Structure formats: structure tokens, C-alpha cells
């Protein structure tokens, strides 16, 4: 027996407990040596989570082992060897939903120490606690001794995932299973976590199985990689060789489907300009702050500055993109643009009319001109309402319409977005995500708007449906002379679709540029960091290691003076911490808010 082999998987087959159901995992075999990092690629739904759970002897009740052997250091954990191997101590698991992994009523550190003490009873309570605090520091959680006593709700997604990493490695397992650990995280945070995990695995010499639905992320781990398709491994080789010479068709297709942002000339068509155009929507110095009662006090309020002085012009027939990570204020800005909330100061002017000056009756009429499409099609549509009724609602709000007329107009709108007329009296329960989004589009279109704001509308869709909807959007744009505003965190989608893009950070716009310039010659350090962190198989036009960010963005309650990015910027200097940079047009059509771009200052810092 090869002593360096820590895990041997042979013919692992798993399926549902209902008899006759097809297997979800079909004869999976592979070997893992100590200190080796093994990557597994699979699309969502391919069975990655089932595989990761099967390896830890943790199948849910609806599934069962049909065949196979999982041997840890020679002991089959699915059989007699189960007594020798303790899950949690010898084999550890990190999942993709850190926020729901711990008991919300007990402090995080206490729970990790509890787990440590359970699987290593030879260490007493105090030793466990000290060890956990030390590890929390090692994963770069600031003030680990204090955060030990914080409750899970106080941890952000990235912080929580770091805590779960501590939870997994604290007992010094020999094998670590990481299942899609960066899925729910923002791009820049995900990049940090991946680097952190890689570092820990090599340092603590843990054999790691890393499962992901993102090929580029697996690339960062490098070693042997397997591709999971329809429950089987369709190939297994080192990552570099996989890219260069994929053995199966599926792998080829998977590699081809990784969005390319730089190695392609494909981009949106430039918009049709007209003479003497005025912006369709003018956003002028808009501010929005929320007051929240500070917990732990009676009458003190903290101010959350969600949007701080945003100014934009959206030109007709443009596809304007707004990108940013969570907490940047995108959602608040979206609500302001859709006039669901009113700005505390500043104005929004649509087609020459200031929205703030309208009476409520005029406002309803004006709403015909601009509509909002939401992200989650399952929750965005009123429950227990038929398709036809949902679309009718847009017209019914505005007054009575004869039945026949109503029906005709609704069916016309449905046809325009590609919904069959038979769906009129059906509930949308059986429709796919893409079809549901079409209902949202139909009920907006029936009002004949000029501007459509899309709030992460394409994020919930898979590649194919996304493609189809993008086609629909461009068709509608041609026919109805529409302008779009896309709010998204998906850089690949934005690269494909948007003509002009604004980058948002902590309530402000830090850069606005057209598509090509933003991606190939970003000006602001945050934009560079964002693009560096985006997982891709290509070479980036600038050195990513220059821009790998540390830590998390400051809280919008406590925004430091000067440039809000200074705390994480690798190129920050004195002036950055004192004076807030203004959004300046350094070259025609390209705006950026950074002191480094002021000619002489850049010289001094370089």
C-alpha cells in the first residue's frame, strides 16, 4: 500500500432511495495523496455537492450509497472502517453557504471551540478557545479576540467563510473537502479566500479536494483536475494539460463557454447617435442616507450613507452598465433611478421633467416612460396570479379599460416578448426562470416605456437563457427605441452588452468609461482590482498581483475622510487620506476619481 495515499475512492455510486432511479454518481474513482490538491470541475446540478457529501459519509436522507468504497488511510468509512475515522476530525468539509452553517443563537467562536472539543476531547476547553482565537487571526479576521464572541449575524459573507475555514481546519484534519466555497461571495473577496485557502492547505499539508463550477478558479489551484459530467469523471489530468489538450468533448465545450472578456473583439454595437441629443435621464448629485437606530442604545441613530453624490447622464439608445460589489450602494441607486425612493438631495430629470417636482397623479403617468425589472423572477411576480392578470395590472392601475381591449393589448405584449397566448390564464408555476423574466418584461413593455432599468435581471439565468434574453433585448431596442440601464456584478455580461459602464464603490462613482476603454485601460485602482479578481482563463492586460486587495470595504456607517478606497488601495499616498477625489473627465468620455491621475501627483508617487 502506498503510504502517501490518504484517500482511495473506488467505484463510488450514489442514487436516490426510490427504487429504479438513475444514479447521481456513477462509479467515481480516484486517489488522493497527502498534501495534494485535487480539483473537480462540474456545472451546477452536475452532482458536485452530492459527491462532496458522499466523500464525507454525509448523504441526505433522500440519497443512498449503491456501491463503492471510500478508504481513508486504508479504513473504509462507508463500512467497517467507520469507527476508526471521525468526520470532523480526520476529514473536514467546507460548504458554499457559510451564512447558514452555524447556529444563529450562539457566538461563532464558541461554536468552533465546541466543535474542536467534540472531535478532540483530549484538548480542554481553554486550549480549544486559545487555538480558535489564534486561527481566526491567521485567516485575517480583524480583532479575532473580540470577534470570537460575536454572533453569526454580525459576520459578512466573506468573514463567515473565513470562520468556516477555521472551523474545518482547527482539528487538523488530514483531508479537506471544499465545495464551491466562493460561490456566494463578491469577486474581490472570493479572490482573497481562494488565495488564503491555497496558502493554508500547502502550509498545513492538508490533502484537499476542491470542487468548483468555475474553471478559472480551479486554475488557481493548479494541480490534478477531474471533470464531472452526468455523474462520471469524463477526464482526469493536470490542469495545464486539461486546458491545452482536453480529452473529452464536454471539457472542450466547458472551456469554450468560459466567458472571455479580453481575448475577444466582441462587444456591443455602438449606439446610434442623433443630432443635438439631450440625455434621456440626468442624475445630478444624488444623495441618500438611511438612519438606523443603533443597537444597544435608546436614542442614538447611525447614518448609513448609501449613495453619496452620484452624477450621471444616460443618453438615448444607450446600454449603460453600473457595476459594483455588495455594499456599494447599487441597490439603493437602483431604487432611486426607479423613483421607488426619493433622494435626500439632488435631482433626477427624465426627458426634461424633474421627477421630484411631479404630483402623484402626474408621477403615475410619467412612470409609463421608465420601468424597472427585478432580479428574482420567483419573488418579483405576485403569487397565485395568472400570467395574463399580472400583465393586465399595469393597465388596470391606470383606469378602466373594456375587457376585449385589455385582452388584445396583453396578448400583443406577450407576443412581443415571446410568450404563447395560451399562457394567459395559467399560473406561472411551471414556467422556467427565463420565461418568468419575460412576464416581467411584458408588463413593463405594455406601458410603452423609453427607459428600462434592469436590476441584476440576468443574474439568475444560465448562459443559454441569458443569451436568448439578450437577443430579445436588442430586438426590442431596435423596434421600440429603448434605452437600458444594467445594474450587475457580472463583469462578463456587462462586457458583452453595455456600451458605457460606471463603476461604483461605497456610494460613489469611481470611474465611468466606454466598454473598450474600461476593460483594456482602466484608470481607477479599484477598477483594476475588480478586473484582476475576475476569474478568467485569459491573460489580463495588466499585472493582477499588483491589485489583489486586502480586507473588506469600510462600513458605510463609518466612511473615512478622503478617498473611500484609500484603506485598501495599494497605491494610496498622503493626499488620498485627506482630500476626496472628484470625478473628473481626464479624456473625452472617460471619467475617473483618483488623485493618481493628476499629472504631477502621479509622478511623485511613482
Amino acid at each position, binding site marked *: 500500500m502506498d503510504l502517501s495515499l490518504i484517500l482511495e475512492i473506488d467505484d463510488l455510486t450514489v442514487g436516490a432511495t426510490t427504487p429504479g432511479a438513475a444514479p447521481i454518481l456513477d462509479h467515481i474513482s480516484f486517489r488522493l495523496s497527502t498534501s495534494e490538491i485535487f480539483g473537480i470541475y462540474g456545472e451546477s446540478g452536475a452532482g458536485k455537492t452530492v459527491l462532496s457529501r458522499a466523500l464525507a459519509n454525509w448523504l*441526505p436522507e433522500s440519497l443512498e450509497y449503491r456501491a463503492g468504497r471510500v478508504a481513508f488511510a486504508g479504513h473504509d468509512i462507508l463500512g467497517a472502517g467507520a469507527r476508526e475515522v471521525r468526520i470532523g476530525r480526520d476529514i473536514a468539509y467546507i460548504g458554499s453557504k457559510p451564512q447558514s452553517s452555524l*447556529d*444563529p443563537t*450562539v457566538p461563532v467562536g464558541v461554536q468552533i471551540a*465546541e466543535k474542536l472539543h*467534540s472531535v478532540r476531547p483530549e484538548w480542554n476547553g481553554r486550549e480549544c478557545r486559545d487555538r480558535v482565537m489564534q486561527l481566526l487571526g491567521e485567516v485575517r479576521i480583524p480583532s479575532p479576540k473580540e470577534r470570537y464572541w460575536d454572533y453569526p*449575524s454580525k459576520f459578512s459573507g466573506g468573514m463567515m467563510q473565513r470562520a468556516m475555514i477555521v472551523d474545518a481546519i482547527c482539528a487538523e484534519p488530514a483531508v479537506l473537502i471544499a465545495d464551491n466555497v466562493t460561490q456566494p461571495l463578491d469577486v474581490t473577496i472570493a479572490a482573497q479566500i481562494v488565495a488564503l485557502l491555497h496558502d493554508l492547505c500547502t502550509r498545513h499539508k492538508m490533502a484537499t479536494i476542491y470542487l468548483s463550477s468555475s474553471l478559472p478558479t480551479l486554475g488557481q489551484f493548479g494541480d490534478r483536475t477531474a471533470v464531472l459530467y452526468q455523474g462520471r469523471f469524463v477526464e482526469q489530468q493536470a490542469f495545464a494539460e486539461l486546458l491545452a489538450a482536453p480529452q473529452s468533448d464536454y471539457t472542450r465545450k466547458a472551456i469554450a463557454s468560459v466567458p472571455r472578456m479580453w481575448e475577444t473583439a466582441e462587444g456591443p454595437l455602438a449606439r446610434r447617435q442623433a443630432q443635438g441629443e439631450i440625455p434621456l435621464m440626468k442624475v445630478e448629485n444624488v444623495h441618500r442616507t438611511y438612519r438606523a437606530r443603533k443597537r*444597544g442604545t435608546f436614542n442614538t441613530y447611525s447614518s448609513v450613507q448609501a449613495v453619496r453624490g452620484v452624477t450621471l447622464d444616460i443618453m438615448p439608445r444607450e446600454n449603460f452598465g453600473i457595476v459594483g460589489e455588495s455594499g456599494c450602494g447599487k441597490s439603493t441607486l437602483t431604487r432611486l433611478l426607479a423613483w421607488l425612493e426619493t433622494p435626500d438631495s439632488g435631482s433626477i430629470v427624465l426627458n426634461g421633467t424633474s421627477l421630484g417636482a411631479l404630483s402623484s397623479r402626474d408621477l403615475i403617468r410619467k412612470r409609463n416612460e421608465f420601468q424597472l425589472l427585478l432580479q428574482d423572477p420567483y419573488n418579483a411576480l405576485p403569487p397565485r396570479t395568472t400570467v395574463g392578470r399580472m400583465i393586465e395590472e399595469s393597465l388596470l392601475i391606470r383606469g378602466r379599460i373594456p375587457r376585449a381591449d385589455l385582452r388584445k393589448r396583453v396578448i400583443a405584449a406577450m407576443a412581443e416578448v415571446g410568450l404563447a397566448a395560451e399562457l394567459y390564464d395559467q399560473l406561472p408555476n411551471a414556467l422556467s426562470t427565463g420565461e418568468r423574466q419575460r412576464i416581467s418584461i411584458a408588463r413593463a413593455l405594455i406601458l410603452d416605456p423609453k427607459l428600462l432599468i434592469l436590476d441584476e435581471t440576468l443574474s439568475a439565468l444560465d448562459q443559454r437563457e441569458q443569451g436568448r434574453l439578450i437577443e430579445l433585448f436588442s430586438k426590442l431596442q431596435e423596434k421600440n427605441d429603448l434605452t437600458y440601464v444594467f445594474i450587475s456584478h457580472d463583469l462578463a455580461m456587462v462586457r458583452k452588452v453595455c456600451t458605457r459602464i460606471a463603476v461604483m464603490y461605497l456610494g460613489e462613482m469611481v470611474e465611468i468609461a466606454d466598454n473598450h476603454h474600461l476593460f483594456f485601460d482602466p484608470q481607477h485602482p479599484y477598477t483594476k482590482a475588480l478586473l484582476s479578481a475576475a476569474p478568467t482563463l485569459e491573460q489580463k492586460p495588466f499585472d493582477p498581483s499588483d491589485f489583489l486587495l486586502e480586507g473588506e470595504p469600510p462600513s458605510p456607517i463609518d466612511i473615512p475622510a478622503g478617498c473611500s478606497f484609500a484603506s485598501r488601495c495599494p497605491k494610496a499616498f498622503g493626499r488620498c487620506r485627506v482630500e476626496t477625489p472628484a470625478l473628473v473627465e481626464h479624456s473625452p468620455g472617460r471619467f475617473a476619481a483618483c488623485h493618481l491621475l493628476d499629472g504631477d501627483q502621479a509622478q511623485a508617487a511613482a
Partner: protein
Amino acid sequence: MLILEFLVKRIAQGLLIVVITSLIIFTLLRVVPGDPVRLIVGGMAPPDVVEKVATKMGLRDPIIVQYGRYMRGLIQGDLGQSYLRPRSGMIAAGGQYVDPTKSDMALVTDLILERLPFTLQLGGMALLFALLISFPVGIAGGLHQHGWQNALAFGTQSLFVSIPNFWLAIVLILFLSIKLKLLPALGYQGFSYVILPALVLAVEIAPFIIRTLTTSLGEVMQAPFIDEARVRGLSRRRIVYSHALRNAAVPLVNLLGIQLSTLIGGVLVIEYIFDYPGLGNLTVVSVVGRDFPVIQGIAITTSAVFVFINIIVDLVAYLIDPRVEI
């Protein structure tokens, strides 16, 4: 700090609620027909005697004035004097005319304080019995959602909630006390007298506890973090008792706060049936006898107890689960 602020805020609100409740009861008593003076002086007395006594007792003044007088006394801790009971303890009724403005009537405060401990003892024992019955049944039912344990919990709870408390009291008295002579029934001459009434009350409370426990424990056991605790290496015992039960306890604690009203109602009826010398008994007699000061005093006491227990309930909920809003 947060807890201190919470207490201050809630106690202030509580005082307000007690004041409002007392005002409502106060007004209600004087507005609804039924003149206490008539009951005191007797049905035969001529109207001018009734008027004279009533004026002397201050019952013909405007309600606001009466309320002001009452409040003044309240602040000094004086809840007034009973209309019916003299200090010696015997109730005055019909034939015997005891002038409540002249003789030394029992202090309401005394009456209440002397009976409160009995009622608290009854309530406490009932709660204890209820928990002893509900927890094993409820936990087993919650953990085995599709097993016989769940059916048992469902059956027990349906049965208990359908039995009228007074009927059960009568049946139990018939069997356990009269036929089998196991437990004493009426009155109070020692601790064993609290057992039967407490049992009946426990049967009234238990179904809600069982129901909440089975449902919320069932829900919590489906939560992702419970599932994940298994792969993290925690033993099932620890998962259920240190985590699942903890999370399931919050709805239960909230329930107790809401059920308090029903509990108080139950105590009243039980004390009446078993002739148990608690506040409930006093209430029934006082209302029938239109003994205003005693009724008001009890209403205030009940209200205060209610507020107090709700504050405790919310505090405990917060201590268990810090996401609770306080």
C-alpha cells in the same frame, strides 16, 4: 447597557398599561348597571338611604373625580378598603348591614397580599406539571415527525385541548377524591390540596406547549446548520439539546407570554371549583358582590403581573436568541 435600557423602556410602558387598564375597569364598573350600594344596604332599603350612603361613599361624584381620588391613594400604596369584608374577615351580605363608611373594612392590599401566594403557588405547580408532561411528549414528537411519537403528541394535544377544564375538575374530584380517596379536593389545608387543581390547570396549558414544541422543533431540525453540525463532528445528543432545542425555545417562550391571559382565566375557574383560597376565588365573589375596590385592586395586580411576566419573557427570549428585537 442594552438590557438596562430595555428594562427602563418596558417598565415605563408597563406602568402606562397598568394605568390604562385600571382606568378601563374603573369606568366599566361605574358605567355598567349594578349598584353596589343596593347590595350593601339590602334590597328593601328606601331610596334616600341608598343615596345617602352612596354619597358618603363618594360614588355619586363624577368619574374623573373618583378616579383622581383613587389614583392619589394608589400612589401612596393604598388600594382602598373593601365594601363588603370587615377586617374581622366575615363577608357582609343582605341581612347584615355593615356600614362601609363607618366600620373598619378590610384593606384591599391586605386581602390581595394574603391570597396572592396561594395563586402563585397554584400557577407555579400547574406550570411545572405542564412542562413535565409536555416536554418529553413534545420533544419526541418533534424529533420523529413521521413516527408514532408525533401521532402520540398530536393525539395528546388534541385530547387535552378538547376537555373543558371544569368538567375535568368534576370528573377528577369524583374519581380521585371521592371514590378513590387519593387526593383532597376542596379548600386548602396543606400542600397536597394544591395538587388536584394544579393537575387540571396543567391539562389546560399542556396542549399549547406540546403543539409549539413539536412544530418548532420539527422546523429547526430541518435547518441547514443542524444538518451541517453532523459533518462538523458534533454528536446527535449535543446537536439536539444544545442547538435545536435552544432555537426551538424562542417561539415557546413567546407563546407563554401570549398564553398568560388564558392561564389567568383558567386559574379563576379552577379556584372557584376547588374552593381554593386564591385571588381567583376572591375575584368571583367580589364581582358578584360589586365590591369595587377589591375588583379594581385585583385588576391592577393582574395587569402588573401580566406586564412583569411579559418583560421577563422578552428578556429570556433575547438571552437565548440575540436576534430578538428588544
